[in-house]
């Protein structure tokens, strides 16, 4: 069966430190992959999506970047975190015209 894993689940980072959130999909090949962010009390905002290795599309300008070094691996990064980067980050993938989400990662920037 197809599954998606996301880690770490919780992260507390100081302002100015780097970030790396990782997402891995199992049980499929060449999936579309997505990074969403959910700020407190809000719906989800699409940050990045990828249709293949090395192919990244950014939806909003910001302090974050994404990379897809392998077919089933999607990484969200930052060189220097800002307080405004705090939030709940969700990796997602699409299959059969449906989008499924990972467990999410809580990021608190202090």
């Amino acid at each position: 069966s197809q599954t998606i894993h996301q880690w770490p689940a919780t992260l507390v980072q100081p302002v100015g430190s780097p970030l790396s959130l990782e997402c891995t999909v199992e049980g499929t090949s060449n999936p579309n992959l997505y990074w969403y962010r959910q700020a407190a009390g809000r719906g989800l905002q699409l940050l990045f999506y990828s249709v293949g290795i090395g192919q990244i599309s950014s939806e909003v300008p910001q302090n974050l970047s994404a990379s897809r070094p392998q077919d089933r691996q999607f990484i969200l990064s930052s060189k220097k975190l800002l307080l405004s980067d705090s939030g709940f980050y969700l990796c997602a993938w699409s299959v059969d015209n449906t989008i499924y989400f990972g467990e999410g990662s809580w990021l608190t920037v202090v």
Partner: protein
Amino acid sequence: AQTVTQSQPEMSVQEAETVTLSCTYDTSESDYYLFWYKQPPSRQMILVIRQEAYKQQNATENRFSVNFQKAAKSFSLKISDSQLGDAAMYFCAYYVEGSNYKLTFGKGTLLTVNP
């Protein structure tokens, strides 16, 4: 711009009763997919139900069903025989065919189930 409006920030229902959550959306496209997701306190986003816009028949999944009115751009979720485990934030979302499955979300409705 594509938008999704959930006009009820909060709703409550008695256990075993029925509740309907509202959602309207705005798109000029004709081919799209609509979704309801549930986000419990664990924060994981769980798919509840999906509706293809080209299908006239309303989707159902056990106790969950939708009322899809394409002309009115309305997509409401009905939960029958509500259970305590249904308590969560519910999000309406859709993507347009050919958009690489990029979802547009509403701001959510917080559902409380009273015992």
